[in-house]
């Protein structure tokens, strides 16, 4: 008999007032009994609407059936057929707009907690297996992967399983892409990412950090070195700014810089080597996952007040629902329908050498109202004349998106990009306009999601295998 409770089993979490001051993981995960109870809510629908909502079509009812049978490893194997990063995706996927949005149980109540069950299964697997993959027999072919984010790691893993000798080139000193420098520890513990990377190494994948493709080596040189195909998963690129006065003041960061300082450069630890503004009053501009992560990081670094300034309303806020709820619970204040027009700086009229000169002392904003929906159905914000107000803040974090990094394109002849700078690929294979070069993830789509980047890595791995088996 299915469990007909209209509500999902709640996710055990650290209490908001405690977690707002530490960097430990917020959501603690289901135990076996809760997972079984939640699994029993799945009706095992014949037409499986949830599967169509999943960007990589995980066989969701099948893995949940395995949970019902207490075959947790079996459940993991079902997920693993379609996804290589279940412990990551179970934590960071926007399930409410994907699989869970399609769940029949969601019509009259809450959908099945598919993401929570995925996470349970992945954590169970990691805790109960030594995780060491079999080293596949080599097939003699060499493939290079550029970037070690979810798309690159997935492509490398799938190819290694087929016997390819794979080298991943990463510009930074640590592998993992956004998973290590962007998404904070309290949402995605770095140990999970490290385990995925270590698994790849155990399968024979070589990871070369400190290599910037386009600078240290070019794509053409990779071919000269004997690689027969190249996958580019170089990520979303350069952070955008608003081009309003005051953006170069001291105390203004891009979200990438702020989060990189905290995560990758470990400013969040007690004895940091990397400076970051701590405490004070912080405004984060933007409404995506990146903005939520920056706001919640600011709280944990000791800020006394944190605002999210977003130009549309709560309904349009693009961040994962759970992150928004967590942010509200932790005390982040949402200034919706507002947009900055100027960041105000301190200037001592009597002392040009005052070290405080050029520090942020506030942010002037204007109220917005929503106009008619545009062709994509999004209602665009229109400034309300005369509605300016000033937020009393000393740190501003800009989290308004990214534009592609031209580095690889400008050094690779024959690699075409679209108007927005994204690499052009054939969707079903990831093949670019240059022979033997494939691409996927944010470098192609612009900032998107971990699961779509992972999916693109899988598609490209399959296509590279077909290309090189010919």
């Amino acid at each position: 008999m299915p469990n007909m409770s209209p509500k999902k089993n709640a996710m055990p979490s650290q209490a908001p007032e405690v977690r707002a001051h530490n960097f430990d993981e917020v959501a603690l995960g289901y135990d076996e009994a809760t997972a079984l109870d939640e699994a029993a809510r799945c009706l095992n629908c014949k037409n499986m609407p949830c599967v169509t909502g999943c960007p990589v079509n995980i066989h969701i009812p099948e893995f949940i059936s395995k949970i019902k049978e207490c075959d947790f490893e079996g459940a993991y194997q079902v997920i693993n057929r379609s996804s290589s990063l279940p412990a990551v995706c179970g934590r960071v996927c926007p399930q409410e707009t994907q699989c869970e949005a399609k769940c029949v149980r969601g019509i009259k109540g809450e959908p099945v907690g598919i993401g929570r069950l995925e996470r349970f299964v992945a954590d169970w697997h990691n805790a109960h297996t030594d995780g060491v993959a079999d080293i596949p027999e080599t097939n003699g072919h060499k493939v290079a992967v550029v970037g070690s984010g979810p798309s690159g790691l997935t492509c490398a893993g799938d190819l290694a399983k087929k016997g390819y000798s794979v080298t991943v080139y990463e510009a930074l000193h640590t592998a993992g892409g956004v998973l290590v420098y962007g998404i904070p520890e309290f949402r995605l513990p770095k140990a999970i990412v490290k385990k995925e990377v270590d698994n790849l190494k155990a399968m024979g994948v070589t990871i070369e950090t400190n290599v910037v493709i386009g600078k240290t080596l070019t794509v053409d040189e990779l071919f000269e070195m004997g690689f027969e195909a190249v996958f580019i998963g170089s990520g979303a690129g350069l952070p955008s700014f608003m081009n309003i006065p005051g953006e170069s003041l001291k105390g203004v960061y891009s979200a990438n810089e702020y989060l990189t300082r905290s995560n990758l450069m470990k400013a969040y630890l007690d004895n940091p080597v990397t400076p970051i503004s701590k405490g004070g009053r912080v405004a984060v501009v933007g409404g995506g996952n990146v903005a939520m992560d920056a706001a919640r990081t600011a709280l944990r670094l000791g800020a006394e007040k944190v605002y999210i300034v977003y130009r549309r309303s709560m309904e349009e806020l693009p961040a994962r629902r759970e992150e928004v709820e967590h942010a509200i619970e932790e005390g982040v204040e949402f200034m919706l329908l507002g947009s900055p027009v100027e960041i105000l700086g301190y200037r001592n009229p009597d002392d040009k050498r005052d070290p405080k000169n050029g520090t942020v002392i506030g942010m002037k904003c204007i109220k917005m109202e929503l106009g008619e929906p545009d062709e994509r159905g999004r209602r665009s914000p229109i400034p309300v004349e005369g509605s300016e107000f000033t937020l009393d803040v000393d740190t501003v974090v800009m989290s308004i998106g990214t534009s592609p990094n031209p580095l690889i394109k400008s050094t690779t002849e024959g690699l075409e990009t679209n108007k927005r700078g994204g690499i052009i690929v054939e969707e079903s294979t990831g093949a670019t306009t240059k022979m033997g070069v494939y691409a996927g993830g944010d470098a192609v789509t612009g900032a998107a999601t971990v699961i779509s980047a992972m999916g693109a890595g899988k598609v490209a791995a399959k296509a590279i295998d077909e290309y090189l088996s010919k």
Partner: protein
Amino acid sequence: MYRITYKKSLNPTVTMLDIEAPLVARKAKPGQFIILRVDEDGERIPLTIAGYDREAGTVRIIFQIVGATTEKLNRKEVGDSIQDFVGPLGTATELDGLKKVCIVGGGVGCAIALPIAEALHEMGCEVTSVIGFRSKDLLILEDEFSAASDRLFVMTDDGSYARQGNVCVPLNEMFAAGERFEKVITIGPLVMMKFVVEATRPTGIPCIVSMNPIMIDGTGMCGGCRLTVGGKTKFACVDGPDFDGYEVDFDSAMERGTMFRDFERHAHEETCNLFKKSV
């Protein structure tokens, strides 16, 4: 890990190191930079490439001991290794076809100016170099500049060596005497570059400056290195480090440069204390 193959102290606060990094050495060009981390959990700092030996696979860096990280780097000896070394980053200084150039270096900036002077000299370009230091004990690379220049002016602020005054003095004299160059290339403290730009502006000679703002990744990901150039936001690590001096907003660059000064001073003291304790 990247091994140190050569170390030389140029003056009490400036050190030169050659570091084994064959991939970087193969590609490096004057004007480009590297980013390094001394040890695990260390800070990432950018340093301009001061030379390279493609055959030996080594890259030369020259740095001033100003903070915790450069202090730690200075404690490394030949045979020791550093954790991370990535590059060459940024765009190379454009030197093609130049016939007559004036190079103006200040302080440790001279270390970055030297490979440019050398490259130009080798191309057969007429090189005039002006190098300036606060005082005699901070002087570096005089012989090297002398070898790479057709004309060399050495200046000290306090007059403790060579001629007294700042680098603009001989520059202004040359301009007043009607001397002209195809380009003025200046590298040094921000204030100095600002003054060199202002001295050059009336002549209309293109004036290239090399900016060294705060950086983290060096690949265009963080935006920490941004500058206002010609009213637009530019990232020094991808668009630079060389920029048209007439377009750079030096005042905001100088302000941003002091963003973490208190933190750095504190971290430097801590590191020094740590070293004192351990010896």
